[in-house]
Every structure is written in C-alpha cells, then in structure tokens.
C-alpha cells in the first residue's frame, strides 16, 4: 500500500511539470471567460476560423506523411534495394512535392494572365481577377437593394422602410457582398420626395471609395468624407 502510495506521490509532480500536464492545464485555462473591466484580447471570429483550418491542414499533412511512410516501407519489403523511409524524410518529400506544385500553379496563373490579357491583375506573386469584375458585383448587389427598396416604397405610399429589419425585404438583400455579410449603412424612414438624400451606402470595410444609393435611385461612387457629409457626421475638431 505504501509502495503504491509512494509511486503515486512520485508521479504527481512529474505530471504537473511534463509537457502533457502543462498542455492539459493550458487547454483547460484557455477558454476561461474574460473578466469584466480587464483588457483581454481574444481571437476574432474570422481569425479563429482561419487558425482552426490551418490546424486541420497541418494534421492532414502529418497524417499524409505518415501514410506515405507506411506504404513506402510496406513496398520496400518487396524491393530489398529500396531504402526505408523515416517520418521526417516522408514529410520532407511531401514538402518538396508541394513546392513543385506551388511552382506549377504560379506558372499556370502567369500563363493564364498572358493568354487572357486584361482579365487579371498582378498582386505580389499572384494574379487576381480584375477589379472591374468586383466593382460590377458590388454594383449589382446595391442595385438589388435599390429594386427592393423601390418596391417597398411603391407599396407603402412612397415611404422607405423605417429600418432594415422589415419583414417585406429578405435579410440577404441588406448584406453587402463581403465575406462577413456586413449590412449596408441604411438611412431609414426617408420618403421618395427627398430626392437628393442618401438612402444607403456600402459599409466602411469596402474602402474609401464606396457605392452609395440615393433616394432618386441614382448609384454613385463616393469618398468616405462625402458619405459622412451626406449622413450628417460632424467634422472632427
């Protein structure tokens, strides 16, 4: 009994200082809620999703390298001259092949740009679809909002919705075409006779040059200071 107790006693500090013990402790303390009043930073939703995906791909990479190692070594039984592959070597092999693939993809994207000039623009080492396409999508989305708002005004005696949670207009119509689905900045409660008033515009994360919709149905690209002026934001002293 004493022997068992002695063993237990000798194991307890080693668990507390071992990497596994530390890991368990860190994992247990990580999700603790932030205490009120303290400045406690946490990962933003988008960053958390991206990091979780990175974690997933890393695990997949390691599992794949392990699979390659096992299969290679299984085959090596039939080929005495084939050397055994260690896990590190398998990982290095997959890394080299990935680099090769990266080179091929860069070559393909370069060739794609050469074969279809004007469709793509260079951004660092990559090519992205030309901005015109994005601007077109942005314009189309705000045009969709305009149609919905005009329909609403026509059926409500020329009054636009008081806010952007009305039942008649689906939620997706209010969302600008960014990844997070940020809602348009909407000025509720206007009527169709306030022709020059700003009705809605793209949110701030669309940059300094944003699409803005006016009550008369016109869609213009405006700079943030112009938008602020139309929204009634006072100038900073």
């Amino acid at each position, binding site marked *: 009994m004493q022997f068992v107790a002695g063993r237990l006693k000798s194991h307890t500090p080693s668990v507390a200082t071992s990497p596994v013990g530390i890991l368990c402790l860190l994992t247990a303390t990580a999700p603790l809620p932030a205490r*009120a009043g303290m400045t406690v930073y946490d990962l933003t939703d*988008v960053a958390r999703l991206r990091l979780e995906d990175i974690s997933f791909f890393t695990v997949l990479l390691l599992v794949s390298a392990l699979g390659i190692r096992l299969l290679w070594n299984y085959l090596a039984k039939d080929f005495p001259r084939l050397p055994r592959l260690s896990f590190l070597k398998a990982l290095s092999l997959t890394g080299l092949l990935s680099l090769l693939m990266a080179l091929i993809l860069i070559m393909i994207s370069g060739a794609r740009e050469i074969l279809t000039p004007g469709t793509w623009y260079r951004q660092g080492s990559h090519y992205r679809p030309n901005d015109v396409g994005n601007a077109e999508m942005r314009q189309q989305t705000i045009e969709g909002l305009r149609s919905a708002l005009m329909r609403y005004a026509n059926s409500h005696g020329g009054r636009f919705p008081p806010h952007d*949670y*009305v039942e008649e207009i689906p939620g997706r119509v209010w969302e600008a075409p960014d990844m997070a689905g940020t809602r348009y900045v909407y000025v509720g409660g206007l009527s169709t006779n306030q022709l020059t008033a700003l009705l809605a515009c793209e949110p*701030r994360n669309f940059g300094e040059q944003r699409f803005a919709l006016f009550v008369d149905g016109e869609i213009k690209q405006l700079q943030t200071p112009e938008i602020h002026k139309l929204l*009634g934001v006072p100038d900073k002293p």
Partner: protein
Amino acid sequence: MIAVVFLATLNGPAILVLPVTLLIGWWPSAARLITTLNPGGGAAAALILAVVVFLLGSHQFCGWLYSKLRPEESAYPLKWPGRWTLCSFGMLLCTLLAIGSLMLTTHQLYWLSRGSDPVFADPFRENRAIMWTAVALQKSGESWNWDENKVRETFPGTDQSFVNRTAIESIEPIWIAGEPGKLRAIVLVPRHPLLRGRARIAVIEPGIKSFTRSLSELHQTLASFGIRSGPTANSAL
C-alpha cells in the same frame, strides 16, 4: 514551465488562445467540413467509378510494362502484384492530400495577413462602444422628449473616437416609432462584430435605463417591439 503556468492562470485566454487554437483547432474544423459535406448519390457513384477505372487501368498498364521489363531470371514476382498498385495509389493519394494541405495552409496564412479584420479584438472595447452610444442616445432622447427626428439627427455625431470610428459606420440603429413623431425604443446593433459570440446589442427605451443583451437575442428583442424580422433577417446570425 512554472512561469508559463503562472502566466496562463493570470491572463489565460490572451496568451494561450493562439497556440491552443493551432493545437486543437483541427477538430472543430473537421467537424465543420463533415457537416457541410453533402455528396449527392450521382457524384459519389462517379467518384467510385473513376477510382475503380483508374486502379484497374493503371494495374493493367503496370502489369504489361512489368512483363516487358522484368528480366528472365529475377527474384521479383512473375506478375505485377495487386498490392503494388494499391500501395502506389495510396501513396499518390497521400501525396496529393499533403500538397493540398500545404497549399491551403499557405492560402490561409496569406488571407490572415491580408484581411481587413484584426487577428485579436477586445470584446469589452467592442461592447463599450455600443454602451457608450446607448447612454448618449438616452440622454439625447430625454433632452428632446424622444422626438424621432431630433434624436436621429444626434446619432451620427455620437463620439466614438475611442474606437476610432463613427457611430453610424460601426453601429446600426433600429428606430422604433411609437406615437406619431415620437420614439418608442432604439435598438443598437453592432454592424460588423469581430467576436459575434460575445457581441451585444443595446436597447434604449424612454423612462428605462438602457441595457444590453446578447446579439443572438436580437430577433426576440425586435419581436418584443412587434418587429417580425424572421430568421432570414441576417443570414450571418
């Protein structure tokens, strides 16, 4: 080690959230992937058929090539064994998975570095901006006797300098009208919450001290004022 544990217990989430997310984040990421996978019967059948045709075809080809290249006197088997084809296919699959993983990890890192949203955010700072605006609007409402137009006019100018934003850009107000020309309530919703799970909305009503609720309670809150926003009011919620 002791220092790490001390820091973990002192300010756990801020310090450890990044490595812990990288360590255990693969699990929620895999769960997300599995739940979003929705393969159709046709697609699954086509995949299985393609794999079978590829395996049989490559086995036949390798068998033919092996029979031509194999020396007469050799210790190797007379026929190309099926396990060699299977092992080669397994290694090819693992290699492609590893290449894909490494490429996608690079993409995630690129998007993480180029995204407009920060990696870390302080939920208290986010919520303080809402509370600050709610208090300012409450004061404005009381001083203007909840006149809708007057209170609306004061909103864009609400000071948000401590979060370096303007109120109308970062907060979405829902003006709920009561008697003609008077406000019954105002609901403030964060326009682009970085930590959606901890984001809060503010409710301002005449004669009642403004209070906050979880963002997930937005629909119930609006419903309590007779606004049937429905589940599609914000697809991101």
